């Protein structure tokens, strides 16, 4: 301000002192230039106005002399000069301000934006970095400016930067989404994507870049997590012990895990893309499409179920029972059905055998109860009739009749006795007996038990061992089996084989005998070539009173009591039979002597294709 005043005063003075026309007003222009110094553009105009006034003053008060028109012209020129300077000057100042403002805005963005920005020069050196860049990397600005970007990258990224990225940027002027690994001051590595443009100067040389660095560490981690969980899922799917099948809403198979492959006998590639009904036997096959269609249109979950038992159809055409649970997944509007399948063939077999065992046990209990009641009723019949008989005349008809009643009662008592044998679970008179002796004792009677049309063969292991048993009961069992064999042959010619051997049931047995633990067993086998039994019969043979014989022939109690006796001794009876060919009965009795554990390893014949095994 003082400068302006001094300058103004000085010029005015010189103007006033000098004769007209000499200095003129032009020097007053200098005042205008002074306006440049002031921050406010308006100062220029103020000074221009002052200069104008002073020019006029100078004209009015400076010594006279000179040509009037020249003087006026001079003043007029001065005014022109003043304003001709002021206006452009003001404009220039305006532009400069605008430029500065935008520059400042730019700088503000650069430093405030929460993004990692940096700029490099043509040599790859950092010329500026945003505050966020410094915050993320952990450096101060002074540590960074002037150094090459590569110094802040991982070795691999640095190499790539030098060898390919920078050259590309310099040549093409831009790069997009280049993956770089930056290394923070603390050594931590971050994954980033970098995009940059290169500014060229007037000569076309690369001058300065603007680079944006995006931290994708989190994203990358998330991607890796997804990929890892996908792998984990795949590992699980491949290794679960159930079959997993996924289908779309039309029933087209989308996935088929290894267990499913084994279960159905198909490779995944055979099944994927085809309809799931190929895995079902009729009638389910045609029904399934109906289910699906109905579900899709009504949302009714007829096919969705938990642990439903269905039948599957293998590649070779065979069917098997499987447990199926179906659940629905909605993947972005697309419906996927996931089926979890478990082959329950073995379980069903075990269930069937358990049911059979329970049924027999139930029958045993019931029989026991009935037997008890009948015994009570037989008491008066036998005892009172007996007493009455004694009171009647010997030889009389009446006495004869009563004695018949007694006899009938005694027969009934025997019958009941056999029922009780079946129901009994105790160990009646048992002793350690040589199984060979026991079996041999019965076979001595074979000629009386077996008609001559039947050819008998025996194979007895004399040192099979001893069992803890009621010898009489075991003999009863064997006799029952022999009588059954004889009946099965119906008077025709045939073969009857009875053998005794020792077997060891160990853990390695592929098809362990249900109900029997490991250990040494005496195995009595009775084989006939009689009429055999079909599956229905086999299901019932050990039930009391079940008989295929005509009324009056046989009581139907032989096998049930035999089964009861053998069970009570800790053993079991197995049967294999083919209608038209014959039957084989296998009686297992636990041997008493542990020392014989490894003497013999025999196993019963496995299930042959055409025969059936039942308890």
């Amino acid at each position, binding site marked *: 301000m003082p400068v302006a005043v001094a300058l103004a005063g000085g010029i005015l003075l010189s103007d006033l002192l000098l004769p007209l026309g000499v200095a003129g007003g032009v020097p007053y222009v200098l005042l205008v230039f002074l306006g440049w110094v002031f921050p406010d553009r308006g100062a220029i105009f103020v000074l221009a106005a002052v200069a104008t006034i002073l020019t006029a003053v100078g004209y009015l008060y400076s010594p006279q002399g000179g040509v009037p028109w020249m003087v006026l012209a001079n003043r007029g020129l001065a005014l022109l000069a003043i304003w001709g300077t002021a206006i452009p000057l003001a404009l220039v100042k305006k532009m400069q301000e605008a430029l500065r403002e935008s520059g400042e805005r730019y700088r503000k963005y650069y430093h405030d934006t929460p993004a990692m920005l940096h700029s490099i020069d043509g040599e790859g050196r950092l010329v500026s970095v945003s505050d966020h860049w410094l915050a993320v990397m952990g450096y101060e600005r002074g540590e960074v400016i002037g150094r090459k970007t590569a110094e802040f990258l991982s070795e691999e990224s640095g190499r790539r930067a030098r060898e390919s990225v920078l050259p590309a940027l310099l040549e093409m002027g831009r790069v997009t989404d280049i993956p770089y690994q930056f290394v923070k001051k603390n050594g931590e590595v971050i994954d980033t994507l970098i995009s940059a443009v290169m500014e060229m100067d007037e000569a076309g040389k690369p001058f300065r870049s603007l680079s944006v660095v995006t931290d994708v560490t989190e994203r990358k981690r998330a991607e890796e997590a997804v990929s890892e969980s996908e792998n984990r899922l795949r590992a699980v799917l491949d290794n679960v012990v159930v079959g997993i099948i996924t289908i779309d809403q039309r029933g087209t198979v989308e996935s088929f895990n290894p267990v499913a492959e084994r279960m159905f006998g198909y490779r995944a590639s055979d099944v994927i893309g085809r309809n799931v009904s190929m895995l079902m036997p009729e009638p389910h096959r045609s029904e399934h499409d109906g289910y699906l269609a109905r579900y899709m249109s009504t949302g009714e979950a007829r096919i969705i179920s938990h642990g439903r038992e269905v039948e599957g159809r293998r590649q070779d055409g065979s069917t098997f029972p499987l447990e199926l649970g179906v659940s629905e997944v909605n993947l972005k509007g697309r419906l996927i059905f996931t089926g979890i399948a478990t082959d329950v063939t073995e379980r069903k077999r075990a269930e069937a055998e358990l049911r059979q065992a329970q049924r027999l046990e139930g029958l045993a209990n019931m029989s026991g109860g009935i037997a*008890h009641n009948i015994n009570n009723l037989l008491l008066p019949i036998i005892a009172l009739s007996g007493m009455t008989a004694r009171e009647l005349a010997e030889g009389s008809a009446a006495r004869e009749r009563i004695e018949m009643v007694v006899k009938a009662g005694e027969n009934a008592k025997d019958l009941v006795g056999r029922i009780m044998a079946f*129901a009994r679970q*105790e160990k009646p008179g048992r002793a350690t007996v040589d199984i060979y002796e026991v079996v041999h004792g019965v076979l001595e009677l074979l000629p009386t038990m077996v008609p001559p049309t039947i050819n008998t063969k025996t194979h007895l292991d004399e040192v099979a061992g001893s069992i803890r048993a009621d010898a009489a009961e075991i003999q009863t069992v064997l006799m029952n089996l022999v009588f059954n064999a004889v009946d099965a042959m119906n008077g025709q010619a045939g073969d009857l084989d009875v053998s005794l051997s020792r077997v060891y049931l160990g853990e390695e047995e592929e098809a362990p005998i249900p109900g029997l633990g490991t250990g040494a067993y005496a195995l009595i086998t009775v084989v006939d070539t009689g009429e055999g039994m079909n599956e229905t019969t086999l299901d019932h043979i050990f039930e009391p009173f079940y008989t295929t014989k005509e009324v009056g022939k046989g009581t139907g109690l032989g096998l049930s009591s035999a089964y009861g006796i053998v069970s009570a001794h800790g053993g079991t009876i197995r049967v294999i039979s083919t209608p038209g060919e014959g039957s084989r009965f296998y009686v297992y009795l636990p041997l008493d002597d542990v020392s014989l554990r490894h003497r013999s390893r025999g196993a019963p014949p496995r299930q042959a294709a055409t025969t059936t095994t039942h308890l």
Partner: protein
Amino acid sequence: MARILVIEDEKMARYTVHQILDRAGHEIEEAENGAIGLDRLEAAAFDLVITDIFMPVMEGIETIQEIKRRHPDQKILAMSGGGRTQEIGVLRAAQAFGAVQHIAKPFSEDQLLVMVEASLAG
């Protein structure tokens, strides 16, 4: 010729045993269940108690136990119906608890009388 108490819930069985024993000359009293039987025992002495094992209202074993508790020297013959499971075990238990002998139904006149003699002999 003995005084015998018959404890048996089945009417026909009770009648039959009574008939047999009566014909053989013994003196008989009857009881329908163990509780009544015990009452009878309190009222009078008996040479032998014949009791069924499976009865409602105080099972046979309990009856035998109780009789032995109150009358340690009482001779007892146990009868069994022979149909229930664990029958033999029960009979043996009965023996262990104090029944002298046991007999299984249905028996004949002679069989019962033999057992009664054996029981009375001790």
